[in-house]
């Protein structure tokens, strides 16, 4: 059931320091590839691929339906994955975990079913200037629909949230605060516990976008005391098309369903429907069963490495990379928060990020260039785009050295 169990016991920080976890990832066996785009989507370890194919080859059936054993076993695997997410996030009950396609769908679900019934024209939805578009656009759409007003916690020059501005922004009209745990574009780790405490004092519920956090640091939703926590599987070394929303049980029970269909009902007559209990009433239709199982395997994988080890190792890479890239003339890192994940968003004087990206690709170095779906951040810093190297458990300092060497060649080519 858990092929990593034995391996995991002997894995520690030293294991990661040897060569990262690169050997676990089939795609990265191409030794020429320097993959520095885990913030967009992470590569998949063999154990996740095995979980997907094993399920399709030997365990596949629809869930929550058949009386036959195969369907029951599939249901157990699917619900088992829910239990893994519950433990991964430190939730009190597995029924507090709802499967969605990813963080984006999770935020849209919450905009529709949690926030929409609570807002009147003139009410306020508070987000931050640091958000990914997925935590901006659903709120803008909701504002247009309901007349609610969208407000932003501003940024500071280091790419941190200006928390001094927060108390005044939390008014008696604020109906929700939605904030990212870790910035995708800058790497900033936000002090969400402190933010939640301030919101709690004003009775404002808090939604945390954890898409960029869960691959890098341990999360305990009960310790944070957040109302909701959303994340995507594909950034956590899991499959695409699957993610989860944690919500406090009291919220799920009070929320109207989202999508209607099979699997979310108790009974349907021609006149009316009685809905199932959470989480089922938020999972209409046949879900991504294999994806959920694959996500469960990804969680086993990162827990096998140990979240504390991952955090420690990536912080070492962050320190090493800051020094290595600091030696590249004309390179300016955007986002220099004291507390940040292993993300280097930078501009290279005289060379546009898009040109940098094409050159790096020529050296088999995969990075993201552009606005990173976070245009308000780019606007704040007055730049159209950055080049972003975002790291994962398979990266090593050698990857960052290759990046720096390539950047030096780019400067030479463009004569800057």
């Amino acid at each position: 059931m858990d092929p990593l169990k034995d391996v995991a016991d002997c894995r520690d920080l030293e294991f990661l320091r040897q060569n990262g976890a690169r050997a676990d990832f089939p795609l990265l066996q191409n030794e020429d590839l320097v993959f520095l785009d885990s913030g967009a989507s992470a590569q998949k370890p063999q154990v996740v691929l095995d979980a997907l194919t094993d399920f399709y080859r030997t365990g596949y059936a629809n869930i929550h339906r058949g009386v036959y054993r195969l369907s029951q076993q599939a249901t157990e695997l699917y619900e088992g994955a829910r239990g893994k997410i519950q433990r991964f996030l430190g939730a009190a009950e597995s029924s507090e975990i709802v499967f969605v396609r990813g963080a984006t769908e999770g935020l849209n679900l919450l905009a529709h079913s949690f926030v929409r019934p609570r807002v009147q024209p003139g009410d306020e939805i508070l987000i931050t200037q640091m958000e990914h578009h997925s935590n901006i656009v659903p709120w803008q759409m909701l504002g247009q629909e309901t007349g609610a007003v969208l407000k932003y916690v501003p940024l500071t020059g280091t790419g941190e949230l200006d928390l001094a501005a927060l108390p005044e922004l939390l008014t008696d009209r604020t109906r929700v605060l939605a904030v990212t745990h870790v910035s995708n574009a800058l790497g900033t780790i936000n002090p969400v516990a402190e933010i939640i405490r301030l919101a709690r004092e004003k009775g404002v519920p808090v939604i945390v976008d954890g898409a960029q956090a869960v691959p890098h640091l341990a999360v305990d939703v009960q310790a944070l005391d957040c109302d909701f926590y959303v994340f995507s599987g594909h950034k956590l070394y899991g499959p695409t098309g699957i993610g989860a929303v944690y919500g406090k049980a009291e919220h799920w029970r009070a929320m109207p369903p989202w999508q209607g269909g099979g699997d979310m009902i108790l009974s349907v007559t021609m006149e009316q429907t009685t809905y199932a209990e959470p989480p089922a009433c938020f999972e209409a239709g046949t879900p991504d069963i294999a994806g959920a199982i694959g996500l469960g395997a990804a969680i086993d994988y990162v827990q096998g490495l140990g979240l504390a080890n991952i955090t420690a190792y990536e912080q070492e890479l962050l320190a090493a990379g800051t020094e290595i890239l600091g030696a590249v003339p004309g390179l300016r890192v955007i986002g220099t928060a004291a507390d940040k994940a292993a993300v280097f968003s930078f501009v290279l004087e005289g060379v546009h990020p898009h040109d940098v990206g094409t050159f790096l690709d020529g050296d088999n170095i995969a990075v993201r260039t552009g606005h990173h779906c976070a245009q308000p951040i780019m606007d704040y810093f007055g730049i159209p785009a950055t080049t972003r190297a975002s790291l994962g458990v398979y990266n090593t300092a050698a990857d960052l050295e290759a990046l720096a060497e390539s950047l030096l060649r780019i400067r030479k080519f463009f004569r800057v």
Partner: protein
Amino acid sequence: MSSLRDLYQELVLDHGQRPRNKRPIHDCSHEKGCTHREGYNPLCGDKLTLYVKSDGETLDDLCFEGDGCAIFTASSSMLTEVLKGKSVAEVKEILGEFLEMLTNGEAEPDPEGLGKLAVFGGVKDFPARVKCATLPWRALEAILASQSDDEGTTAGAVDSNDDQID
């Protein structure tokens, strides 16, 4: 697959770093024979305003404002330089050939017809960069279309998002 040297030829680097005709036309209005059009590439944030002054027969002045990558800047700069003083009919022909060169995977580049614009032929081998080169040309296409409609409208913006070859 072309090399990066084919993509970033001397001419592209030169125009990318020292763009020609990078300036606005103030008071650009239909009455003054001036049309402008914005172009935006949402993928990478390239932004452009292209200005064309024409009596309906000849393109008397072309210039642009905007910021983006070297390919985009060089393409905008060379567009304004090459097309200035050409007749509308000539411009339409060059425009068609340029877009064909970059967006038709089968097309054989015709260096004769395009003159120095042929340096952008290498962009075809970098599909993620095709839009950078075509953005100012899509804006020009929209301006010419609005002029032949005799609407003179400057509303709306173009993007080159569909310009991707396999």
